[in-house]
Protein backbone atom coordinates (compact mmCIF):
# COMPACT_ATOMS: atom_id res chain seq x y z
CA UNK A 1 0.00 0.00 0.00
CA UNK A 2 2.69 2.41 1.00
CA UNK A 3 4.67 1.42 -2.08
CA UNK A 4 1.72 2.26 -4.24
CA UNK A 5 1.50 5.59 -2.53
CA UNK A 6 5.14 6.29 -3.19
CA UNK A 7 4.63 5.39 -6.78
CA UNK A 8 1.74 7.75 -7.18
CA UNK A 9 3.52 10.41 -5.19
CA UNK A 10 6.61 10.18 -7.36
CA UNK A 11 4.51 10.31 -10.48
CA UNK A 12 2.56 13.28 -9.13
CA UNK A 13 5.66 15.25 -8.27
CA UNK A 14 7.44 14.49 -11.53
CA UNK A 15 4.46 15.24 -13.69
CA UNK A 16 3.63 18.46 -11.92
CA UNK A 17 7.26 19.49 -12.23
CA UNK A 18 7.06 18.80 -15.93
CA UNK A 19 3.88 20.85 -16.13
CA UNK A 20 5.81 23.77 -14.83
CA UNK A 21 8.96 23.08 -16.76
CA UNK A 22 7.89 22.00 -20.18
CA UNK A 23 8.00 24.61 -22.89
CA UNK A 24 5.05 23.44 -24.87
CA UNK A 25 1.72 24.23 -23.26
CA UNK A 26 0.08 21.22 -24.87
CA UNK A 27 2.59 18.92 -23.26
CA UNK A 28 2.20 20.73 -19.98
CA UNK A 29 -1.52 20.17 -20.18
CA UNK A 30 -1.06 16.50 -20.87
CA UNK A 31 1.30 16.15 -17.94
CA UNK A 32 -1.26 17.92 -15.83
CA UNK A 33 -3.76 15.26 -16.81
CA UNK A 34 -1.29 12.66 -15.63
CA UNK A 35 -0.75 14.51 -12.38
CA UNK A 36 -4.47 14.64 -11.75
CA UNK A 37 -4.81 10.95 -12.44
CA UNK A 38 -2.05 10.06 -10.00
CA UNK A 39 -3.78 12.31 -7.48
CA UNK A 40 -6.92 10.31 -8.09
CA UNK A 41 -4.91 7.23 -7.32
CA UNK A 42 -3.85 8.62 -3.99
CA UNK A 43 -7.48 9.45 -3.27
CA UNK A 44 -8.31 5.83 -3.82
CA UNK A 45 -5.59 4.82 -1.41
CA UNK A 46 -7.15 7.15 1.13
CA UNK A 47 -10.39 5.24 0.47
CA UNK A 48 -12.06 8.25 -1.05
CA UNK A 49 -13.14 6.27 -4.05
CA UNK A 50 -15.88 8.59 -5.15
CA UNK A 51 -13.56 11.55 -5.08
CA UNK A 52 -11.08 9.62 -7.12
CA UNK A 53 -13.70 9.02 -9.76
CA UNK A 54 -14.81 12.61 -9.76
CA UNK A 55 -11.20 13.70 -9.98
CA UNK A 56 -10.76 11.65 -13.12
CA UNK A 57 -14.06 12.71 -14.63
CA UNK A 58 -14.18 16.36 -13.74
CA UNK A 59 -10.55 17.35 -13.66
CA UNK A 60 -8.72 14.98 -15.94
CA UNK A 61 -11.79 14.88 -18.08
CA UNK A 62 -13.75 18.05 -18.35
CA UNK A 63 -11.39 20.70 -17.16
CA UNK A 64 -8.31 19.49 -18.94
CA UNK A 65 -10.21 18.96 -22.15
CA UNK A 66 -11.25 22.55 -21.88
CA UNK A 67 -7.64 23.56 -21.47
CA UNK A 68 -6.47 21.50 -24.39
CA UNK A 69 -9.29 22.82 -26.48
CA UNK A 70 -8.31 26.37 -25.75
CA UNK A 71 -4.65 25.68 -26.42
CA UNK A 72 -5.48 24.10 -29.72
CA UNK A 73 -7.91 26.87 -30.51
CA UNK A 74 -5.29 29.46 -29.87
CA UNK A 75 -2.84 27.25 -31.69
CA UNK A 76 0.01 27.90 -29.28
CA UNK A 77 3.48 26.71 -30.09
CA UNK A 78 6.53 26.34 -27.86
CA UNK A 79 6.88 29.30 -25.56
CA UNK A 80 10.09 31.09 -26.30
CA UNK A 81 11.50 31.48 -22.84
CA UNK A 82 15.00 32.84 -23.36
CA UNK A 83 16.75 36.02 -22.47
CA UNK A 84 18.28 37.34 -19.28
CA UNK A 85 15.11 38.78 -17.82
CA UNK A 86 13.30 35.48 -17.98
CA UNK A 87 16.30 33.63 -16.60
CA UNK A 88 16.44 36.02 -13.68
CA UNK A 89 12.74 35.68 -13.09
CA UNK A 90 13.00 31.92 -13.17
CA UNK A 91 15.79 31.99 -10.64
CA UNK A 92 13.91 34.29 -8.31
CA UNK A 93 10.77 32.23 -8.78
CA UNK A 94 12.42 29.01 -7.79
CA UNK A 95 14.15 30.57 -4.84
CA UNK A 96 10.95 32.12 -3.58
CA UNK A 97 8.93 28.95 -4.00
CA UNK A 98 11.50 26.84 -2.21
CA UNK A 99 11.86 29.45 0.50
CA UNK A 100 8.12 29.43 1.04
CA UNK A 101 8.12 25.67 1.26
CA UNK A 102 11.01 25.61 3.71
CA UNK A 103 9.68 28.29 6.00
CA UNK A 104 6.30 26.60 6.08
CA UNK A 105 7.98 23.27 6.80
CA UNK A 106 10.00 24.78 9.63
CA UNK A 107 6.89 26.25 11.16
CA UNK A 108 4.96 23.03 10.89
CA UNK A 109 7.81 20.96 12.25
CA UNK A 110 7.76 23.06 15.41
CA UNK A 111 4.69 21.37 16.64
CA UNK A 112 2.36 18.93 15.06
CA UNK A 113 -1.11 18.61 16.34
CA UNK A 114 -4.15 17.24 14.62
CA UNK A 115 -7.69 18.17 15.26
CA UNK A 116 -9.91 15.81 17.29
CA UNK A 117 -10.50 12.65 15.26
CA UNK A 118 -13.72 10.70 15.34
CA UNK A 119 -13.42 7.10 16.54
CA UNK A 120 -14.70 5.88 13.20
CA UNK A 121 -16.49 7.28 10.25
CA UNK A 122 -20.06 8.26 11.01
CA UNK A 123 -21.69 5.56 8.91
CA UNK A 124 -20.71 2.77 6.53
CA UNK A 125 -17.65 3.17 4.36
CA UNK A 126 -15.91 6.42 3.67
CA UNK A 127 -16.24 5.96 -0.02
CA UNK A 128 -19.93 5.43 0.32
CA UNK A 129 -21.54 7.77 -2.16
CA UNK A 130 -24.78 7.67 -0.27
CA UNK A 131 -23.15 8.88 2.91
CA UNK A 132 -21.50 11.68 1.05
CA UNK A 133 -24.74 12.61 -0.60
CA UNK A 134 -26.62 12.73 2.66
CA UNK A 135 -24.12 14.97 4.34
CA UNK A 136 -23.92 17.09 1.26
CA UNK A 137 -27.64 17.65 1.17
CA UNK A 138 -28.20 18.01 4.88
CA UNK A 139 -25.34 19.79 6.60
CA UNK A 140 -23.82 21.28 3.49
CA UNK A 141 -27.04 22.29 1.84
CA UNK A 142 -26.23 25.96 2.03
CA UNK A 143 -22.78 25.83 0.48
CA UNK A 144 -24.12 23.48 -2.10
CA UNK A 145 -26.72 26.01 -3.15
CA UNK A 146 -24.08 28.63 -3.29
CA UNK A 147 -22.01 26.50 -5.63
CA UNK A 148 -24.98 26.22 -7.92
CA UNK A 149 -25.13 30.00 -8.20
CA UNK A 150 -21.38 30.00 -8.62
CA UNK A 151 -21.68 27.80 -11.66
CA UNK A 152 -24.47 29.95 -13.01
CA UNK A 153 -22.27 32.98 -12.68
CA UNK A 154 -19.45 31.17 -14.41
CA UNK A 155 -21.75 30.31 -17.27
CA UNK A 156 -23.06 33.83 -17.66
CA UNK A 157 -19.59 35.24 -17.36
CA UNK A 158 -18.21 33.04 -20.06
CA UNK A 159 -21.05 33.98 -22.35
CA UNK A 160 -20.53 37.66 -21.65
CA UNK A 161 -16.83 37.59 -22.19
CA UNK A 162 -16.38 35.13 -24.96
CA UNK A 163 -19.40 36.16 -27.01
CA UNK A 164 -18.41 37.50 -30.38
CA UNK A 165 -18.51 41.14 -31.35
CA UNK A 166 -22.12 42.12 -30.80
CA UNK A 167 -23.74 45.27 -29.56
CA UNK A 168 -20.52 46.39 -27.97
CA UNK A 169 -18.90 46.51 -31.36
CA UNK A 170 -17.18 49.69 -32.43
CA UNK A 171 -16.34 50.66 -28.91
CA UNK A 172 -13.15 52.61 -28.73
CA UNK A 173 -10.27 50.39 -27.76
Amino acid sequence: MLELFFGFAALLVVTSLLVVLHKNPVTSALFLVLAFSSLAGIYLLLNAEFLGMVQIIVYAGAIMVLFLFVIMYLNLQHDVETGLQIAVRRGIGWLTGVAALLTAALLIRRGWALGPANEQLPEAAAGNVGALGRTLFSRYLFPFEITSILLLVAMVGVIIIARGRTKTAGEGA
Partner: protein
Amino acid sequence: MIPLPYLIGLSAIVFAIGVIGVLVRRNALVIFMSIELMLNAANLAFVSFAAHMKSLDGQIFVFFVMTVAAAEVAIGLAIIVHLFRLRESVFVDEIHLLKG
Protein backbone atom coordinates in the same frame (compact mmCIF):
# COMPACT_ATOMS: atom_id res chain seq x y z
CA MET B 1 -2.90 3.90 6.43
CA ILE B 2 -0.45 6.31 4.89
CA PRO B 3 1.21 8.41 7.55
CA LEU B 4 -0.01 11.98 7.53
CA PRO B 5 3.41 13.65 7.27
CA TYR B 6 3.99 12.01 3.91
CA LEU B 7 0.70 13.20 2.61
CA ILE B 8 1.03 16.72 3.89
CA GLY B 9 4.61 16.84 2.66
CA LEU B 10 3.50 15.71 -0.75
CA SER B 11 0.70 18.21 -0.93
CA ALA B 12 3.01 20.96 0.24
CA ILE B 13 5.53 20.07 -2.43
CA VAL B 14 2.89 20.07 -5.12
CA PHE B 15 1.58 23.37 -3.85
CA ALA B 16 5.06 24.83 -3.95
CA ILE B 17 5.52 23.58 -7.48
CA GLY B 18 2.30 25.28 -8.39
CA VAL B 19 3.49 28.52 -6.85
CA ILE B 20 6.78 28.24 -8.67
CA GLY B 21 4.94 27.66 -11.88
CA VAL B 22 3.00 30.85 -11.41
CA LEU B 23 6.17 32.73 -10.69
CA VAL B 24 8.34 31.46 -13.50
CA ARG B 25 6.05 31.03 -16.49
CA ARG B 26 4.88 33.78 -18.76
CA ASN B 27 2.19 31.90 -20.59
CA ALA B 28 -1.13 32.78 -18.99
CA LEU B 29 -2.44 29.29 -19.67
CA VAL B 30 0.45 27.56 -17.97
CA ILE B 31 0.24 29.94 -15.05
CA PHE B 32 -3.37 29.01 -14.81
CA MET B 33 -2.52 25.31 -14.86
CA SER B 34 -0.09 25.88 -12.03
CA ILE B 35 -2.88 27.49 -10.08
CA GLU B 36 -4.90 24.35 -10.68
CA LEU B 37 -2.00 22.44 -9.22
CA MET B 38 -2.18 24.57 -6.11
CA LEU B 39 -5.87 23.89 -5.73
CA ASN B 40 -5.31 20.20 -6.11
CA ALA B 41 -2.61 20.27 -3.50
CA ALA B 42 -5.15 21.78 -1.19
CA ASN B 43 -7.58 19.05 -2.12
CA LEU B 44 -5.02 16.44 -1.30
CA ALA B 45 -4.48 18.00 2.06
CA PHE B 46 -8.22 18.02 2.69
CA VAL B 47 -8.63 14.41 1.77
CA SER B 48 -5.71 13.21 3.79
CA PHE B 49 -6.81 15.10 6.89
CA ALA B 50 -10.30 13.77 6.42
CA ALA B 51 -8.98 10.27 6.14
CA HIS B 52 -6.95 10.59 9.30
CA MET B 53 -9.75 12.20 11.22
CA LYS B 54 -12.21 9.69 9.94
CA SER B 55 -14.55 12.45 8.88
CA LEU B 56 -16.35 13.02 5.65
CA ASP B 57 -16.23 16.79 5.75
CA GLY B 58 -12.89 16.94 4.05
CA GLN B 59 -14.17 15.09 1.06
CA ILE B 60 -17.16 17.33 0.82
CA PHE B 61 -14.87 20.33 0.77
CA VAL B 62 -13.00 18.81 -2.11
CA PHE B 63 -16.25 18.76 -3.95
CA PHE B 64 -16.81 22.38 -3.50
CA VAL B 65 -13.27 23.13 -4.43
CA MET B 66 -13.67 21.21 -7.64
CA THR B 67 -16.77 23.14 -8.48
CA VAL B 68 -15.04 26.41 -7.78
CA ALA B 69 -12.09 25.28 -9.82
CA ALA B 70 -14.34 24.41 -12.71
CA ALA B 71 -16.03 27.78 -12.54
CA GLU B 72 -12.73 29.57 -12.36
CA VAL B 73 -11.39 27.61 -15.28
CA ALA B 74 -14.37 28.54 -17.36
CA ILE B 75 -14.12 32.22 -16.62
CA GLY B 76 -10.35 32.30 -16.76
CA LEU B 77 -10.13 30.55 -20.09
CA ALA B 78 -12.77 32.84 -21.47
CA ILE B 79 -10.80 35.86 -20.39
CA ILE B 80 -7.58 34.47 -21.82
CA VAL B 81 -9.24 33.62 -25.10
CA HIS B 82 -10.69 37.06 -25.37
CA LEU B 83 -7.37 38.56 -24.49
CA PHE B 84 -5.78 36.54 -27.26
CA ARG B 85 -8.37 37.89 -29.64
CA LEU B 86 -7.47 41.42 -28.76
CA ARG B 87 -3.76 41.06 -28.33
CA GLU B 88 -2.70 37.99 -30.29
CA SER B 89 -0.75 36.98 -27.21
CA VAL B 90 -1.13 35.05 -24.02
CA PHE B 91 2.13 36.14 -22.52
CA VAL B 92 1.53 38.06 -19.33
CA ASP B 93 4.73 40.03 -19.65
CA GLU B 94 3.49 41.50 -22.88
CA ILE B 95 0.48 42.90 -21.12
CA HIS B 96 1.30 45.99 -19.11
CA LEU B 97 -0.72 48.94 -20.26
CA LEU B 98 -1.61 49.47 -16.64
CA LYS B 99 1.32 50.19 -14.37
CA GLY B 100 3.00 52.76 -12.18
